């Protein structure tokens, strides 16, 4: 066998099946692996000497990362999809039907099909290890668990605990899994297989589910399902069918027989996987995976970090380092600022402890990784420093100088800037080749994107170390050229600038926000400005207005708001007041404002705001700010809140067709302003019938896993 190791039967009659996908760092349930699994299970069921079965992994710290997403992406036909689900269900059904005790020994990452396999076993035991993460992330790919997950999980741990796992894809740690009954026991990581065999032989009385009183009440379960549906709709605005379908399958399946429930899973899966949303989300997943694979391992991975600037951003970045076990020295100009930063780190770590993700001892050792200083001492061991000070060129340059004086010569200095040029910050540095931009997004712990800004003199080594660190911190790093606004802000402000232009023409902020949210954005442009802070936005808007006078919007209104002290959520409000209602007085600040432009349709709002974004994306691609259309899609979805189910701006442009985009732009260039002149790349693509994404998004497929 190549995918699964079958260890010789022990003298107590325990059979071990250990997954070991060849040439991969994680185990994937490929088609061959499934065939081998079935053959092995058949063999075991025929062998009278086998008294117990343990299913585990031969790989360190990873159990099974799920089904092969390439295979999922290739399912374009409902019949084939239905068959794929039925086949997996049948194999897992054989495991569930074995008369001998079966145990899944979960030693690390356990996702999707891996979790469903574990659910088909009689018992589950997990290593008491931080690497253990058990989840059903299928909904994030626009599909649902269809190898028995929607059926067996609620039956094992109850609907209350099962629904959040299925509907949000959020994984559980080993300790959490034990608490909710997802696993029966924890074991020492090095003794997991022994403990699993022990559990199989000795067995364990079924655990009683800890359920709330609601479940037992007449109408209780119905209430739970209703509440869950409300929560899903609040998050997805009805634009993602998978969680709703999954909820429906669990609700109906829970009241039916297991066979009927499995049938429902399969049907829903076939519907979802062939739909547009799943196609887009799977496409994004491939782009993320291929981006992840493009990150090289540096010769010496970061050992000790430093963060300069202990504000919200600096402390947030320091927290990421600390969470990954990297010691970090936090520096700011005054003790109270350093103290406040350290307090933020401690609170963030304690938050994870309260949630049960970290033990008390683990939280203590994480907290101890952060140290503070107001002096430039104690940096001699740091190999990666991140500057997160005020967005001010002189300050950042001074910090670079100070850092160069106290860091070892080989240390990398990353500047976290959103608007300044990295080359300008590196000017006057004695080792500019060590300087790179790392643009984190706010809030740092939630936003998955990091722009790695490569200045002309940035060395390959510095770039490699920056990419690897961003990846280690759990982010998706996108390489961008050191040009004004980099990628995300440049595109985003094309869109925001148009929103402000419409606002000045008389459309209200709430109308525009509602239209864009309705289109699938996480939040509308004005809500976003309030959230980011108008002062922060102004710095970016000014840089862009100067760099791209022909296309960028004017920063006048934002300027006036900053002058009036309306900085957004952090101050007396911005476009919206404290009561979350639109603040009418802002309109008075707009220089050329009209009271009302009459009603503008939602479609018009969406097109007016989306077109400049697509146009700017084409220009950025043309100029080489970023080197591929997929990276633009990834960056805008992960960094700007572009609707994921639309696949990203370039995927959207493909959907509309380059010709249509150009036509729409030209029409507005005549009617509204020259800023709508289509980019040369779009015009060329329109004439040549070209697409940004060659033969469809699935074809990026080197090996990839999930779900």
């Amino acid at each position: 066998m190549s995918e699964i190791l079958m260890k010789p039967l022990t003298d107590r009659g325990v059979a071990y099946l250990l997954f070991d996908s060849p040439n991969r760092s994680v185990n994937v349930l490929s088609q061959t692996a499934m065939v081998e699994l079935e053959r092995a299970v058949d063999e075991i069921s025929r062998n009278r000497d086998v008294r117990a079965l343990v299913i585990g992994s031969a790989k360190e710290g990873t159990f099974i990362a799920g089904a092969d997403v390439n295979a999922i992406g290739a399912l374009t036909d409902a019949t084939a999809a239905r068959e794929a689900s039925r086949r997996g269900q049948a194999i897992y059904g054989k495991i569930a039907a074995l008369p001998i005790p079966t145990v899944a020994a979960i030693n690390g990452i356990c996702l999707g099909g891996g979790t469903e396999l574990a659910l088909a076993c009689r018992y589950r035991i997990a290593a008491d290890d931080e690497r253990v993460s058990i989840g059903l992330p299928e909904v994030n790919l626009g599909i649902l668990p269809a190898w028995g997950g929607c059926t067996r999980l609620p039956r094992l741990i109850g609907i209350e605990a099962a629904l959040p796992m299925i509907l949000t894809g959020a994984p559980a740690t080993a300790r959490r899994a034990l608490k909710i009954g997802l696993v029966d026991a924890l074991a020492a990581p090095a003794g997991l297989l022994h403990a699993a065999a022990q559990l199989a032989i000795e067995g364990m009385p079924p655990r009683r589910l800890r359920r709330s009183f609601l479940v037992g009440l007449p109408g209780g379960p119905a209430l739970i399902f209703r509440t869950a549906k409300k929560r899903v709709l609040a998050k997805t605005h009805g634009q993602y069918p998978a969680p709703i379908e999954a909820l429906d399958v669990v609700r109906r399946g829970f009241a039916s027989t297991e066979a009927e429930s499995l049938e429902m899973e399969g049907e829903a899966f076939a519907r979802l996987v062939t739909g547009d949303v799943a196609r887009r989300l799977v496409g994004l997943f491939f782009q993320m995976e291929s981006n992840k694979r493009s990150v090289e391992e540096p010769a010496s991975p970061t050992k000790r970090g430093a963060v300069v600037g202990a504000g919200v951003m600096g402390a947030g970045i320091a927290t990421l380092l600390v969470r990954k076990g990297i010691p970090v020295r936090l520096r700011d100009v005054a003790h109270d600022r350093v103290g406040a930063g350290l307090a933020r780190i401690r609170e963030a770590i304690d938050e994870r402890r309260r949630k049960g993700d970290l033990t008390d001892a683990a939280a203590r050792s994480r907290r101890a990784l952060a140290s503070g200083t107001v002096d430039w001492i104690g940096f001699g061991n740091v190999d990666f420093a991140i500057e997160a000070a005020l967005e001010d060129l002189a300050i950042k340059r001074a910090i670079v100088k100070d850092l160069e004086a106290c860091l070892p010569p080989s240390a990398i200095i990353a500047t976290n800037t959103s608007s300044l040029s990295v080359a300008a910050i590196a000017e006057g540095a004695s080792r500019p080749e060590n300087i790179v931009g790392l643009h984190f997004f706010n809030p740092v712990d939630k936003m998955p994107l990091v722009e790695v800004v490569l200045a002309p003199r940035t060395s390959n080594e510095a770039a490699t170390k920056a990419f690897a660190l961003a990846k280690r911190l759990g982010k998706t790093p996108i390489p961008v050229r050191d040009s004004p606004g980099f990628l995300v802000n440049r595109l985003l402000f094309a869109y925001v600038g148009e929103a402000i232009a419409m606002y000045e023409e008389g459309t209200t902020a709430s109308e525009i926000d509602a239209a864009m949210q309705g289109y699938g954005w996480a939040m509308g442009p004005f809500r976003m400005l309030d959230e980011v802070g108008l002062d922060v936005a102004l710095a970016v808007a000014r840089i862009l207005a100067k760099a791209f006078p022909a296309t960028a919007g004017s920063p006048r209104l934002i300027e006036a708001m900053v002058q009036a002290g309306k900085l957004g959520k952090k101050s007396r409000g911005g476009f919206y007041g404290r009561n979350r209602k639109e603040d009418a007085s802002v309109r008075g600040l707009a220089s050329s404002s009209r009271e009302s432009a009459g009603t503008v349709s939602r479609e018009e709002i969406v097109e007016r705001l989306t077109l400049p974004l697509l146009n700017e994306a084409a220009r950025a691609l043309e100029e080489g700010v970023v080197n591929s259309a997929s990276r633009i899609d990834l960056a805008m979805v992960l960094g700007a809140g572009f609707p994921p189910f639309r696949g990203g701006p370039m995927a959207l442009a493909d959907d509309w067709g380059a010709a249509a985009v150009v036509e729409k732009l030209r029409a507005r260039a005549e009617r509204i302003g020259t800023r709508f002149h289509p980019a040369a790349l779009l015009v060329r693509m329109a004439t040549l019938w070209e697409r940004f994404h060659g033969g469809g998004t699935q074809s990026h497929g080197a090996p990839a896993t999930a779900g």
Partner: protein
Amino acid sequence: MDVPVVVLGGVRTPFAKAGSALRHVAPLDLARFVLRETLDRAAFDPDLVDEVIMGTGAPPAEAPNIARSAAILAGVPERVPAYTVQRNCASGMEAIAQAADLIASGRARAVLAGGVESMSRIPIYFPDATSDLLVRLARARNAAGKARAVLAFRPRHFKPTPALLLGLRDPNCGLSMGETAERLAQEFGITREEQDRFSLESHRRAIAARKAGRLRDETMPLYPPGRETEPVVDDVGPREDTSLDALARLKPVYARALGTVTAGNSSPITDGAAAILLAREDLARALGIRPLGRILAHAEAGLAPSRMGLGPAFATARLLERAGLRISDFARIEINEAFAAQVLAVMKAFASQSFAERELGRSEALGEIAPDRLNPNGGAIALGHPIGASGARLVLTLLHELGRTGGGRGLATLCVGGGQGSAIAVEGSVR
């Protein structure tokens, strides 16, 4: 010593009177702060550390081998061993002495050593009978049994004894530390005014050192876990507003009649930690780290517990013999100021021919200590005396002072409750 031993760096927390700024900081945190900061400031790769030794007077219940627990939290690799030493007031100095021995004998290349004490956190004891009752309560199987156990408690069971007080009373001679100081004052004829003057000078020097920024290199800012926004940057003890009058008004603590030892001329109970990094000289050279100085020799001695304050005289006598040095060879001397009476008695003993002959078996006196060479930046009366940490602080302070003033040799010594003395001779590098 065979292999030359150098000090690569070190740091201490600010010292704070027990119950003040550091009262919420666990000793384990105090210890890991100084260990980590010492490594960071010396830019020393923790992989090169071969041993960690910490001294403490009262090992905390939650981390009895505090050196080990703190070393791991400070980023020292798990494979590096660590142990905790206890020689009462000399615990921190003992850690340094043992570290120096390990390196000198070729058994270690680099050792982290230091001391820690949170006197705010020393536990409070309840009578044995109380714990018997608590055990009974825990073992009671039913409500009736529990009720019976609860009803057996009496008010006397709740009368606490601070372990601190127990620790400050010598079990062999039955005297408290303050009482031993009173005895020395009488034996050497030291007046209340002399003690108060000495104490005032300790405060004056500590304040002057802080104002001149002389303590900046040796102290680290401490951001208390859980209260990071109330950072502790300076020592809490030294007072600018104290005066001879104010000191004279304080009542003697240990003897009602003829008493001279007061809260003003004794070292306050204090929280703090200090650490230094020692290494082979050739390792420092290979790494290109300029040392603070080197360790020349150390010595320890015992004497009558009731005269424990004279420990420095006995230990120094041995040290001089061992290293072939004279008192006049030391450009700077640090004697821990447990009590002003005790330091003044030590100075008299150092200068006395008859003391040398009678007590030390020497033909000549140890030698006079010039007051301007002694504790030039103030001492424990102003800064406080966190039992386990003081010995390490003395060495750290001494090396920094020598570095500032042109190098030369220095002596650090302290008296030890229980009737001992410890002493270390160092040589400072010119900074």
